């Protein structure tokens, strides 16, 4: 029972990693850029949702949707204003730019007096509720926060899957990510698609931020959790959407089990050990495609 309990906690945490990793993967597939500000986008989403609920007094669901919408626009704006001028530059340049964006976001949020420096709790309606499965002493206890993460993630993945599979826009995005030049020749507006991809990625991270908020609170440094999403993305094979989620789940579960069964300290580095092993054994990741450069 305890093992199952740990696994469920790991799955919930893993969903968060998976969502952030999904944000990385979307952007990487479309533009071959690794976005180091993904965690900070998540943090911005958390603060935005908090502002909508506390300052504007919106109900949770409205605030959730409003945050997603605003972050979608913010992501698009970010691409248009900062990333597009660097189109065609080496990946390292763009990575440094996203690191700069992350610093900027963290710094600016902390600059808001009495808001950014504090630790906040998101007043979600399902706080502190638990679901008991099975009876007696060894019942499986599921906290609503965890359940919400798992359900919303599953829903979001389903929506994204349908979007990429069946809508014209989604198929255009797939085409763009496979071969930009060919997509361009087919009349797909590649730049606008890239902009939209950044928007979707920002919205997905914001979603992760809002889901995570009831567990870890909202503060300016919550974005560092994004660093654990890198291993998740690599394990899944950077560039594969189901891979990101599976990688996230693996990292979450391994971390949760390591925290319980291994000595103190292993919990924090478990994700990194797994990714190093993965890179040594299978550098393409679980779902990654084999890439070979031809001259």
């Amino acid at each position, binding site marked *: 029972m305890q093992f199952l309990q740990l696994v469920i906690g790991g799955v919930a945490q893993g969903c968060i990693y998976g969502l952030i990793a999904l944000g990385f993967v979307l952007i990487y597939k479309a533009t071959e850029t690794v976005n180091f500000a993904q965690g900070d986008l998540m943090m911005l989403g958390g603060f935005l949702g908090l502002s909508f609920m506390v300052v504007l007094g919106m109900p949770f669901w409205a605030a959730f949707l409003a945050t997603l919408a605003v972050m979608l626009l913010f992501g698009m704006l970010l691409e248009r204003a900062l990333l597009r001028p660097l189109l065609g530059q080496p*990946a390292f340049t763009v990575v*440094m730019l996203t*690191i700069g964006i*992350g610093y900027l976001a963290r710094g*600016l949020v902390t600059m808001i007096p009495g808001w950014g420096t504090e630790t906040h709790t998101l007043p979600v309606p399902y706080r502190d509720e638990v679901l008991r499965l099975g009876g007696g002493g060894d019942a499986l206890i599921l906290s609503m926060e965890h359940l919400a993460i798992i359900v919303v993630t599953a829903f979001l993945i389903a929506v994204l899957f349908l979007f990429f599979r069946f809508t014209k826009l989604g198929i255009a995005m797939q085409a763009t990510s496979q071969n*930009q030049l060919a997509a361009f020749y087919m009349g797909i507006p590649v730049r606008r698609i890239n902009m939209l991809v950044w928007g979707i990625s920002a919205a997905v991270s914001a979603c992760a931020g809002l889901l995570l908020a009831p567990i870890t609170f909202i503060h*300016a440094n919550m974005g560092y959790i994004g660093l654990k999403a890198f291993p998740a993305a690599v394990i899944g094979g950077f560039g594969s959407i189901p891979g990101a989620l599976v990688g996230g789940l693996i990292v979450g579960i391994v971390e949760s089990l390591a925290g319980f069964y291994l000595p103190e300290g292993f919990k924090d580095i478990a994700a990194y050990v797994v990714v190093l092993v993965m890179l040594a054994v299978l550098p393409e990741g679980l779902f990654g495609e084999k890439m070979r450069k*031809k001259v």
Partner: protein
Amino acid sequence: MRFLFKTRYEQDVRLFKHGGQKFWYGLLGAALLLAPWLFSDYFVSQLVFIWIYSIVGLGLMLLVGYTGQVSMGHAAFLAMGAYTETYLQQKGWPFVFSLASAAVVSGLTGIVVGLPALRVKGMYLAISTLAFGFIVEEAVTRADGITGGSSGISLGGLEIFGLPIDSEQRFYYVSLAVLALCILGVMNLMRSPTGRAFVAIRDSEISAQSMGIHLARYKTIAFTLSAALAGIAGALYAHKLRFLSPDQFTFLQSIELLIMIVIGGLGSIHGAIFGAAFWILVQQFIVTAKDWLPPAIGQQTGLQPTIFGLCLVAFVLFEPLGLYGRWLKIRTFFEMFPFYRKGMFRRQKSYLKSERLK
């Protein structure tokens, strides 16, 4: 405008290209030797930090700027150097040996970290070095027998050949000397076949390989040397601060080192030093500015990351060649006056270069 007519091959590899360079660098050297007498102890102490960061910057530049391998865990090498030095100093080793050992231990770690570089590249390498950085950080916290754990460890006074290095001035000369040796070493390396191989690998792995460059060997050498330089800097850092704790060697420190060399200008030795100077001076500037800014802004903890973020974004967007690139532009402008054209340093327009061509 100066025209260099090269008549012999040796002119290509000279340390100083012409007499003017000899003169100006000589002047700079003299000024640096006199600095401790001219400036206050506080400023001299900041200069020492610049020298130390320049050494790490040089190491990172060798790896990122010249070989094109990204490392996001360089703080780990700094930590290796610092803790090795502390440990050996406590054992009573003389400084010269402990410094060398710090470099060796750090360099050996570099080999281990560089192993993934033989199989993966680009972002995968960045993430594996990142992972390594976190693991070392955690290991340093846990190995409290040697490192003092999270409560930290302090280091006694330094003595070189019986001469106690007890004042800011004396330590200034030690670090300046080490920096000068490191710069000379890197300059020599970059004009040797090994250095040329590094640059070839950066520009194109495939063409480097076709020219007969052993990728695995040279990448490992780059990682080792880069880590060794970071280890040397770490040893000096330990003596400068006299107190080490794991939170000085975090992931953020690694990222800041990267930011430092990007701002300084990738792919040049000047860039590493400009970057370090910029980094320390801006930090000093922020500390000073806090006093005369309105408290609503000045007392904010977010001021420093905001300014660094802004600088980085501005440099990447508007001056991708960094401070050294800016300096080159200004110099070219005056050298060629009035014939400088706006597009002389313009970035090549290019389309997205895909790494996944099928």
